[in-house]
C-alpha cells in the first residue's frame, strides 16, 4: 500500500513542534504499524535525516511503552489493542494517516512522539502496593479468595500503564488508571488492610500532578487497549467515600 503520513515532529521539550508530511510506499498490509514506522525511519536515516522518535519495546501489547495518537484515536482505530499490535490491514491504500504524541499536560513531550509518563510512577509510589517486606509471609493457600473476586482483580490488574486513558480524556484525567490499581487491591484480602490510606494518597497525588477531573465521558474506557472498565472508577469512588467517612 502507499500512504501519506502526517507526523508531529518536535526536537525537544521546550521547542515548538509541527506536522511534517512523509509519503511511504509499498507497505505490506500484513506489516504492523510500528514496522511501517521502522520502514519510514530506515528511509530517513538512509537519506541522512533524523528518524522519528517514538516509544516502543515489547511490541506485543504488554509493556505499555508504545503510545501514538493515530487519526484522532489513542492507539489507533482498532479496538482493544495497543499501537504495536495494530496492523496496516486496518488502513486503506492511499490513506492519509495523522500521527501525534499523547497530548496531556502531565505528560510533557520529550521528542517527536515520545512523552514523559513518569507521573504514573509517582502515583503508584504514593500507595499502589501492599506494605509488606520480603519474607515472613503466610502460605499462599492460607487465605482462600473467591474466584470471582480474583478474576475481577485480574481484570483490573491487566492495566499496562500506557496512558491512553489520559490522552483520550478532554480533562486529562487519570481516573481509569488509578482506579484500576485501587480496585485490584480493594478486591483482595491482602490489599484491604491499607485500603483507606491507599485511595486517599493515590488520589491526592493524582490531583497534585495536574491530572484533570473525571466528568464521566467514558472516552478512557473506549480507548483503553486492555478494556479496563469504568466500573473500576465507580468502585474507587465508593472506596474514596468510605475512606472519607471513616
Amino acid at each position: 500500500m502507499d500512504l501519506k503520513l502526517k507526523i508531529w515532529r518536535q526536537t525537544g521539550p521546550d521547542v515548538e513542534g509541527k506536522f511534517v508530511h512523509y509519503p511511504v510506499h509499498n507497505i505490506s498490509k500484513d506489516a504492523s504499524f510500528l514496522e511501517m514506522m521502522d520502514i519510514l525511519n530506515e528511509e530517513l536515516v538512509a537519506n541522512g535525516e533524523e528518524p522519528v522518535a517514538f516509544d516502543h519495546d515489547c511490541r506485543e501489547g504488554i509493556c505499555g511503552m508504545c503510545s501514538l495518537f493515530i487519526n484522532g484515536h489513542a492507539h489507533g482505530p482498532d479496538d482493544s489493542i495497543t499501537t504495536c499490535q495494530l496492523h496496516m490491514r486496518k488502513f486503506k491504500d492511499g490513506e492519509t494517516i495523522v500521527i501525534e504524541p499523547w497530548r496531556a499536560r502531565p505528560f510533557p513531550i520529550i521528542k517527536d512522539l515520545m512523552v514523559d509518563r513518569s507521573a504514573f510512577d509517582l502515583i503508584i509510589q504514593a500507595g499502589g502496593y501492599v506494605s509488606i517486606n520480603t519474607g515472613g509471609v503466610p502460605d499462599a493457600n492460607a487465605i482462600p479468595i473467591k474466584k470471582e473476586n480474583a478474576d475481577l482483580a485480574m481484570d483490573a490488574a491487566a492495566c499496562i500503564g500506557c496512558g491512553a486513558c489520559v490522552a483520550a480524556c478532554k480533562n486529562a484525567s487519570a481516573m481509569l488508571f488509578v482506579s484500576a490499581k485501587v480496585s485490584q487491591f480493594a478486591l483482595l484480602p491482602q490489599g484491604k488492610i491499607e485500603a483507606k490510606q491507599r485511595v486517599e494518597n493515590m488520589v491526592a497525588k493524582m490531583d497534585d500532578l495536574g491530572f484533570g477531573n473525571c466528568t464521566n465521558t467514558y472516552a478512557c474506557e473506549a480507548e483503553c487497549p486492555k478494556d479496563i472498565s469504568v466500573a473500576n472508577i465507580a468502585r474507587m469512588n465508593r472506596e474514596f467515600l468510605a475512606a472519607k467517612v471513616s
Partner: protein
Amino acid sequence: MTKLDSKVPSGPIAEKWTNYKAHQNLVNPANKRKIDVIIVGTGLAGGAAAASLSELGFNVKVFCIQDSPRRAHSIAAQGGINAAKNYPNDGDSIYRLFYDTVKGGDYRAREANVYRLAEVSNNIIDQCVAQGVPFAREYGGLLDNRSFGGALVSRTFYARGQTGQQLLLGAYSALSKEINKGAVKMYTRREMMDIVKIDGKARGIIVRDLVTGKLERHGAHAVLLATGGYGNVFFLSTNAMTSNGSAAWKAYKRGAYFADPSFVQIHPTCIPVHGDYQSKLTLMSESLRNDGRIWVPKKKVDAQKIQKGELSPVKIPEEDRDYYLERRYPAFGNLVPRDVASRAAKERCDEGYGVGNTGLAVYLDFKDAINRLGKNVIEARYGNLFQMYEKIVDENPYETPMMIYPAIHYTMGGTWVDYELQSTIPGLFVGGEANFSDHGANRLGASALMQGLSDGYFVLPYTMQNYLADQINVPHLATDSAEFEQTEKDVQDIIDRLFVVKGNKTVDSFHKRLGLIMWDYVGMARNKEGLEKAIVEIKELRKEFWGNVNVPGEKTGMNVELEKALRLVDFLELGELMARDALDRNESCGGHFREEYKTEEGEAMRDDENYMYVSAWEYKGDDQEPVLHKEPLVYENIEVKQRNYKTA
C-alpha cells in the same frame, strides 16, 4: 590459569543453603546505611533485589532503559511460574523440581544452584500472593496449576496469559514502596555503558542518560547486573526491542568470565516469520501445548498444496495428519521440552512437510480440545493469546489451526557466577537471565520467572550481604578518581568513533545481517564447518560496520540510532564468542545441537566424558583469542542419564 571456584558449600545438598545462611556474614543495621549498592535492571531479578536490599537498609540506586521500571522485559512472560508446592497432590516435591530442571537442562547445570532454586520456589509464590498478585484460582478459592513441558506434574502457577506482567508488577510495587520511602533512588531512561573497577573490585558504573545523551558516573560498594538475556543477537527473537547483551559484554571485557555463551533456547511455539521488514517475533505461550496438538500433513502433496494456498488444513482427514510429537515421544507427547519440540518441527519442515506459504510452519490445533471442553473453556484459558494471534495473522484460531515455528527466545548462557551469584570480578553480582544460571543447556518452561525472583528476593539479599560485610569501612565511593575518569573516556571514545564513520548503511541493516549469520550457523542446528564460517563472516561484518555504518543525529539529546548502534557494537563481538563456544563443544546437549553428534534416530548425543563442564571464557584483548576455563560439573544427587521423553 585461574581456577574457577564455584564456592558451593559443603554438606548434603538439602542442607547447603540452610547452612550457608546460618554461617554467612551479616551487616549490622547501622552500618547498612553506610553502604551503597547499584542495581542495573528492573526486571524480576533486579526489581526484586532492589526492593529486598532496600528493605534491609542498604542505599540502593537502580537503573533501567525504559521510561519506567514496570516495563522491563519480564513483563512479556505469558505462561507461568513453577514451584514445588504440590498443591494438586500429584507427586511433586523439591527433589522432583530439582531433578526435572537438571534433566531438562541436559545435565549441564550446577547441581547445588538448581537445588536451591527448587527449595526457594515455594517462598516465591507465598511472597507474590502476599503482594496481591492475582494468580488464577479454582472455585474453592485456592490457587490453580497447569502443566508445562518437561514435567509430569502440574506445578505451574499463572495469571491468565500475563504471568510475567503480574509478577513484575508485584516486584515493581515493592520497589515503588521503597522509592516512596526515599530508600531507593530510581534512574529511568538510563543505559549502563561500562563497569568501573578500582583495585580489581567493581565500584561503579558509567551510564548514558538517554534523554540528554550525557554520560554520568555512579559509585557503590557493589554492583548487581540484572540486565536480562542477549537473544537479540539474532535480530529476530521474542525479546523486547531494547533487550541487549551490552552490560554482560562490558563485564566480560572488564574481566568477568562469560559462561556457555552458545546455549540459547529456541522456543517451539512462535508465530512464523512473515516478511523481511519484520522487527520481532511473537511468542505463543507454551501453555498452549497443554491443549493444542501439533501436526503436519502425512503426505507431502498435501503440504505442497497448503503452501500454495490450494488446500485448507481443516479439510485434511484425521488419518492423513502426522501428530509427530505424539508419534515420536509417546510418554510426553506434545509436552516434550522446548529443544526437542523445536528440532522436531525443523526436521519435518526440512523434509518438506511444513505448512504456511513459506513451508516453515507446523500446526497447533485446538479442535479436539474445543470438542472435549467447549469453546468457552478454551477461551477462558487462552483468550488473550488467541486474540493476539488473530491480530497478527488475520486468521481465527478457533476455526483454523494456529501456525507456529521455532524462534530464539532465551539465553541460558551469561556471565559466569559462583554459588553466591558473584562473577569473577569481586563485588560484581549477576542475577536473572543475565547470569549463566541454573538451566544448563536448556531451560524448562516457567522456570525463568522462578529463577529471576529466586535470585532477586531470596538469594542475592543474602549473598551480597555476605560480601558487603567486608566493606563497611570503605567510605562512599567518590567518582572523581582516575578509574572513573578513564572508564568514562573509554565510553566516550566509542561514541565518538561511531560518529566519525559517516558511512551509508543503517544500523539495522547490519543487525539483520548478523542475525542471519547467527540463525544459519549458530542457531537450531550447528556444525563445525558452519561455525568456522560464522566466525569469519562475523569478523568481516564487524569490519564493514566500523567502516560503513551511518549514525545520524547528535551526541547530545535523544538519539535512538546511536543507542541501537552501541548495542550492536557489542552484539557483533558477542556473536563471535557464541560461535567459538559452540565450536568447542563437540557434542549435542539441550539447545546446542551439533549435527555431527546425534543418535541414529536423530536425537541429541551428549558426551559426558569430555564435555560435562561449564565453559567460562576469559577476555584477553580485542585482537587476542579468548581463553577457555572449564568448571567441571559433578552430579552426586542425581543419576546422569541420556534424556528420554519416549517412556516415562
